């Protein structure tokens, strides 16, 4: 048991996966000798050698294509896209190939790859280092999408993702890499060490994909969140003094609908929050599902608190970020509604 940052949790998972399975290989831009621009692959090349951990050309499409081919051979590639904003050159190989391969080959060929990418804003990264593209991938049948919110989950979910026989998009909230962030830009940065979910067992453990976690039980309103917003939701609940049930989805696809439905049927109210742009964001799917499955239990409209439908503006991160104030206002509307 050691207090770890998110980066260390991810690094630990990679070390374990590579140690356990000689077919796991790691490659991507700057991941080799350097250990990745966020240090998530630190030490892997030294430990497992250049043949299993190496730098890749700057070609996200080529990286994913190579991973598809390696998967067909029988390897389990774990590739890093340096920022989720740079995953678009790989969309064809992800959508047309990795996601479709099992289906189109009648199950003969598969693509057991994990694609890791830091996502989300809050580090003054501007529009090309802050994006949250999850909804593009959750719309694609054949892909799984996972987003951890703390070091403990990061390790357990990443191990499950790597061992999963289907392609998994593993998005890492970069704002949480070195400490939790609740959306309060003025508060001093807190380290993970003070957070219970930073206790990461050395032993191997897995968190099954498709299982949400209720991080704060409550009766007044259900809050559906993932990644960075898990912390914002808890801060907002505390600030508003509203008895929120905060659900950390952890896996967006496959989704743990049962947990969501049970919670909303109990509270009768639902607020959804994500950092991605609103229109056709994952919150749209959640809202559609909740009203489909809980219509007769809903006492107020389902609220969506999200990034605005603009690029992520470098200087207006605070105004763009769906922080505790905006979320808090939505919580109040939700509990006061009807």
């Amino acid at each position: 048991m050691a207090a770890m940052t998110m980066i260390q949790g991810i690094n630990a998972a990679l070390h374990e996966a590579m140690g356990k399975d000689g077919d796991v290989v790691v490659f991507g831009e700057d991941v080799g000798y350097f250990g990745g621009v966020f240090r998530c692959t630190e030490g892997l090349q030294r430990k497992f050698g250049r043949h299993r951990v190496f730098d890749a050309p700057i070609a996200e499409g080529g990286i994913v294509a190579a991973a598809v081919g390696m998967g067909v051979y029988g390897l389990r590639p774990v590739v890093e896209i340096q920022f989720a904003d740079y995953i678009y050159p790989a969309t064809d190989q992800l959508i047309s190939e990795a996601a479709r391969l099992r289906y189109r080959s009648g199950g003969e060929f598969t693509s057991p790859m994990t694609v890791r990418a830091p996502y989300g804003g809050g580090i003054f990264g501007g529009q090309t280092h802050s994006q949250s593209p999850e909804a593009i991938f959750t719309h694609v049948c054949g892909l799984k999408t996972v987003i951890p919110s703390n070091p403990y989950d990061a390790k357990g979910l990443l191990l499950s993702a790597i061992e999963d026989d289907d392609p998994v998009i593993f998005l890492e909230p970069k704002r949480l890499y070195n400490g939790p962030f609740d959306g309060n830009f003025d508060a001093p940065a807190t380290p993970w060490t003070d957070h219970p979910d930073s206790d990461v067992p050395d032993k191997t453990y897995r968190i099954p994909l498709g299982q949400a976690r209720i991080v704060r039980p409550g009766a007044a309103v259900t809050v559906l969140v993932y990644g960075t917003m898990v912390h914002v939701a808890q801060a907002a609940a505390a600030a508003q003094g509203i008895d929120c049930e905060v659900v950390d989805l952890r896996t967006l696809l496959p989704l743990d609908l049962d947990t969501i439905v049970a919670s909303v049927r109990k509270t009768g109210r639902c607020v959804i929050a994500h950092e991605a742009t609103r229109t056709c964001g994952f919150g749209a799917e959640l809202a559609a599902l909740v009203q489909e499955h809980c219509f007769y239990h809903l006492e107020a409209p389902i609220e969506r608190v999200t990034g605005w439908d603009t690029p992520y503006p470098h200087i207006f991160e605070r105004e763009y970020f769906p922080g505790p104030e905006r979320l808090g206002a939505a919580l109040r509307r939700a509990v006061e509604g009807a």
Partner: protein
Amino acid sequence: MRNRQPLSLHVPEPRFRPGEEADFGYLNIPPAGAARRPEVDTPASEMRDMCDGLVRVLDESGETVGPWRQEIDPQVLLKALRAMVTTRAYDERMLRAQRQGKSSFYMKSTGEEAVAVAAALALERDDMLFPTYRQQGLLIARDWPLVDMMCQVYSNTRDRLKGRQMPVFYSSREANFFSISGNLATQFSQAVGWAMASAIKGDDRIAAGWIGEGATAEADFHHGMTFAAVYRAPAVLNIVNNQWAISTTQAIAGGEQATFAARAIGYGVAGLRVDGNDFFAVYAATRWAAARARGNYGPTLIELFTYRADAHSTSDDPSRYRPKGEWERWPLGDPIERLKTHLVRRGLWSDEDHAKLMEEAQTTVRAAQQEAEKFGTLQSDTRLNPATMFDDVFREMPPHLQRQKREAGF
């Protein structure tokens, strides 16, 4: 530096359009035997000239000549001839079946049979193939059952792809033949990834990939070449230059400014430009590239210079964009005729044998067709079970798909 001349856009056009007479005199085709044969470990930088020449072994008279000439067991040659003839017969038959409404779509490889058959015979059975939709000859040369191929074309109850793929997008793990994608070029860089994996594991199997000259413009070609060059992936990478991409001339893919083999030079990869209608040339070049790959000397890019004799697919009508009879005028002839001439000349074969072979091929194909149609065609009422539509999206069916399956009434 003002009063400059106005610029103008250059838009390449094919030499001939419908109504005109095709005349390929402008192509300078080096004589058979002219191309030198470098050692398989020759640095790419010392064999750039191979990208501008043309590896040819079979001369007009059917003689095999030059440094690329090599002894090939007559049994292999006869197997090759049979595979090519069978491929052509298969294509004819399946085209007819499509016209009869037994399948939704079909694509022939007429004129390009040597490209696939020679490669299949030059490579090892356990080398992994990443083909396009125009290398059905690979499967046939690997003795893959025609019935199985036809069942895919018919999307019938024995279609191993469960009716999910359009006709001709074959897939066979057993034949080490990768699932053909409808999205052009994607397999090219995947082949390199497979080859890298083989090298990572210290395996001795290599990968071979194919791509059309038109599709070389896609990103995957560049990615495949870059990764292959950087990691010296053990891969044989083939560009099938059949002059056309549907209605678009190879010049629009860049064939006007340089050969497609020349792409290799920029990446520091060995390149060979080969007469794609010459079985001996394709076989020898593939052998050379395979030996280079197995020796850990890295990848080879091979341009197979050929001609798409027939329509792009059953959805296409070439008479709208190219003159009739181009194929008859194609200076590199018909791969089947050329191999036949050689065998006859060597006394290994005769016109009678050939007539008999064609007859047999017809019979084989017809028999396979009868067998395949027992399991239905596109028109049959007995179909695959639609409930299977929800399988294989993921290894295990997630809850939302289970719900949708129920919703669909299954």
